[in-house]
């Protein structure tokens, strides 16, 4: 054991420890005292927070399963006009963050909003605001979140369907099953682990949503955490609330993890695999399938894009008021710094784990990357708690406090991004590494290559595709990221996400449209670039 401790081991250990800090901070909040607000909260809003969070969760889970599984089934088992287009077009919904979707809903259905304008121009000003349904509040949040993240269920279920063998379906036919019975008895159960994995991700995202629920004014555990910290300046309570939320998320994380393991088993084409024959739909059935997919594509992607574009063209002043160079350079700085840090440290950690083969290190890495399940807002609060703890107890200087360096700075922001997206980078690199047999490393050593030279000459060239994919995914996530950026950014430092949020929170949705549409278009471009990987169809 002692022989294994080397520079790689120590570096990997340290990296995992840094990533695990927020989790440790949240657990430690139980040993600290909270303000009186906690008592007030318990007696007043806590139950409302919990009930709202659960209601939102259940609603989103139902909607995303119907949309995600339905679309995945249609594009996987049937040929109809546009089926190949919808296969990847439906993942474009990932480009629209829930908070921007919420702004679109607000902009369209609000009093004197786009719906009102369209209907009145068509009907000659006879429609009043009261006749237009208001898709806001809890229902609005459910819709916004569902249509922006149903992609998780769609992508994972479609992959599972994609790799289902024709033999399974033929087996159903042999047993005399109808199409309906085949779907419910064979197709759906064998995709169950993937569906559960997708729904678990949806659940985690829903519970950690901040932008949508705050826009629609719904009090959930996430907004409770934000209020405890911002309004009542009680970091301990914020951490304690985070703990409750985290426990719930860890439960989902465990379910997701277990399901994923099984999902892999189900989706890998083993021996006896026979490629599925898609059924050609004709006539009204083809039109129906097309309409369903188009409707989902329209609502999830085209609607927010059109709404945001429309307002951008309608109010061009806001577009020209945007300091585009500044926003782009800020985004670029964050992307470059975060990606460099994440890729470099993920490599060190993966390589350290690979060459030391230490079970302790592997367990610590697994524990620390579970941070991906933590909402951004919790991470930011936990990070601030940690820095405050260091400032008050360890690094005590007369004329200087470390808070100014770590909080409200690009450095601090990048560190929290690092913790938030470490699992994405780490898993991306890890999945690349899993394809490299250990004997490849050993062959290199036996050809006289040192550890560093093996890394440089063998691993890096092999993993370049994985690195590219990870960078693109990080880029999409960082561009869309809201709560961490909002809390941790330096004064006057804006990204497209924070600009859109700032305008929206001031009820200036027309001004939020320009940064929102730019954000959607950039994300869409990068999603298309990686669509083969996202759809799991890369060679």
């Amino acid at each position, binding site marked *: 054991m002692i*022989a294994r401790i080397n520079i790689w081991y120590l570096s990997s250990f340290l990296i995992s420890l840094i990533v695990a800090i927020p989790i440790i901070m949240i657990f430690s909040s139980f040993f600290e005292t909270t303000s009186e607000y906690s008592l007030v909260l318990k007696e007043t809003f806590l139950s409302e927070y919990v009930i709202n969070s659960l209601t939102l969760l259940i609603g989103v889970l139902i909607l995303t399963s119907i949309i995600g599984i339905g679309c995945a089934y249609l594009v996987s088992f049937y040929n109809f006009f546009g089926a190949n287009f919808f296969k990847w077009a439906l993942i474009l919904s990932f480009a629209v963050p829930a908070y921007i979707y919420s702004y679109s809903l607000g902009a369209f259905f609000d009093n004197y909003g786009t719906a009102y304008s369209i209907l009145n121009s068509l009907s000659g000003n006879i429609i009043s605001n009261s006749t237009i349904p208001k898709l806001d509040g809890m229902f609005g949040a459910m819709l916004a979140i569902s249509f922006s993240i149903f992609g998780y269920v769609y992508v994972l279920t479609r992959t599972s369907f994609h790799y289902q063998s024709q033999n399974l379906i033929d087996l159903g036919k042999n047993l005399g099953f109808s199409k309906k019975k085949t779907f419910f008895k064979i197709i759906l159960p064998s995709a169950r682990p993937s569906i559960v994995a997708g729904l678990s991700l949806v659940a985690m995202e829903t519970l950690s949503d901040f932008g949508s629920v705050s826009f629609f004014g719904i009090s959930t555990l996430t907004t409770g955490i934000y209020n405890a910290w911002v309004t009542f300046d009680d970091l301990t309570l914020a951490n304690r609330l985070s703990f409750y939320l985290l426990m719930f998320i860890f439960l989902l994380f465990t379910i997701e993890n277990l399901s994923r393991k099984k999902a892999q088993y189900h989706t890998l084409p083993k021996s006896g695999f026979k490629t599925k024959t898609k059924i050609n739909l004709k006539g009204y059935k083809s039109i129906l399938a097309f309409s369903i997919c188009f409707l989902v594509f329209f609502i999830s992607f085209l609607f927010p894009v059109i709404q945001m574009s429309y307002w951008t063209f309608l109010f061009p002043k806001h577009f020209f008021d945007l300091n585009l160079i500044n926003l782009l350079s800020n985004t670029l700085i964050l992307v470059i710094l975060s990606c460099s840090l994440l890729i470099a440290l993920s490599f060190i950690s993966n390589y350290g784990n690979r060459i030391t083969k230490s079970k302790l290190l592997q367990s610590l890495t697994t524990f620390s990357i579970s941070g991906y399940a933590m909402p951004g807002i919790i991470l930011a609060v936990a990070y601030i708690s940690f820095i405050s703890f260091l400032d008050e107890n360890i690094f005590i200087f007369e004329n200087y406090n470390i808070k100014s360096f770590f909080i409200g700075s690009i450095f601090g922001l990048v560190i929290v991004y690092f913790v938030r997206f470490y699992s994405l980078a780490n898993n991306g690199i890890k999945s690349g590494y899993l394809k490299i047999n250990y*004997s490849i490393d*050993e062959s290199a*050593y*036996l*050809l006289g290559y040192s550890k560093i030279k093996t890394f440089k000459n063998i691993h890096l060239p092999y993993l370049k595709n994985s690195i590219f994919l990870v960078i693109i995914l990080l880029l999409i996530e960082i561009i869309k990221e809201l709560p961490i950026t909002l809390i941790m950014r330096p004064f006057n430092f804006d990204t497209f996400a924070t600009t859109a949020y700032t305008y929206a929170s001031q009820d200036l949705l027309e001004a939020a449209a320009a940064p929102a549409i730019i954000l959607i278009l950039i994300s869409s471009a990068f999603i298309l670039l990686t669509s083969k990987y996202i759809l799991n169809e890369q060679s």
Partner: protein
Amino acid sequence: MNNFFEINNVTFAASKKNKVNNVSLKIENEGDVICLLGPSGIGKTTILRTIAGLEKINSGSISLNGKVISSNKIHVEPEDRNISLSFQDNSLFPHYNVIDNIKFGADRNSRKTKKLKLDDVIEFLHLENIKSKYPHEISSGEAQRAALARSLLSMPDLLLLDEPLSNIDQNFKEEIQVKLKQILREYKITTIIVTHDSYEAFYLGNKCGIILNGQLKQFDDPYNVHHFPNSIEVVNFLNKGILIPATVVDEKTLENNDLGIINGDFIKHYPKGANVKLLLQPEDLEHDDKSSLKLEVVDKKFRGTNFIYTLKTQSNLLIPVFVHSHHVHQHEVEEKFGVKKPIHIDHIVCFD
């Protein structure tokens, strides 16, 4: 005199249960080839991995060129040993084509004065047509040949080959064996080969080691291993003969109830009257149609150059006998088969 390579009382452990205990062997001269034989999963690969430095040892020592490279205190890293291991499974770098993979080997000891030429190795291993292909585009046999080329070109102080020809087509195999032996000898590449093919081991090795039941049972010249196996376990493992009961008559004679008198030179002395188990190999009996010793044919295998008849004695012993396949008179199952009397065996190998 220092041995070129030496393993001194080392226990090789693949796992807690699977160990090869207290192995000691030496390669006296640079350029010698030794082959290790043993059943699957016995730990042969672990021995190679340990010698290569991929596994550590807790006791004993391994030395190369007079320098200890492994002991409980010393562990020279694999990259610093100048030992090359050609793995049994495909260990080509997947993102480089065959020629680039091979060049990794050539780059290693590029300063050596006497070195193999890249083109020569490619030619002898028949890699011309797959040079620009990637590992996933070639067969396992081709990958194995490419890995062998890479290892050979690295001109290591010690070359370790793990089942190097196991996936190679039969039509190439013999040709490659011949050329490989020639190259190893010409370039004085000291080599340890692990194989399950005893003919390959007997052909390529200056010495052969038999690993059975967690021990190196015999380490000797191929001739001796074949003709003078030192234990019943080795006889059973090599499966090149049977053991029949016999009684020692005098210093040059034994007697078996079914086969009668058997003459020859004893390898080990046994007292008169001792009951022993005699090793009878297929080449020990001679066919003679005129002989009065007739045994029943129960099986006949055609092996190209010869037939192997399995004969049944009165007490139901099953004895294999070689007969040249050009022998005009053949015998079918259930027919009688004449065995020349008295039986003469050059080296009589017996066990208690």
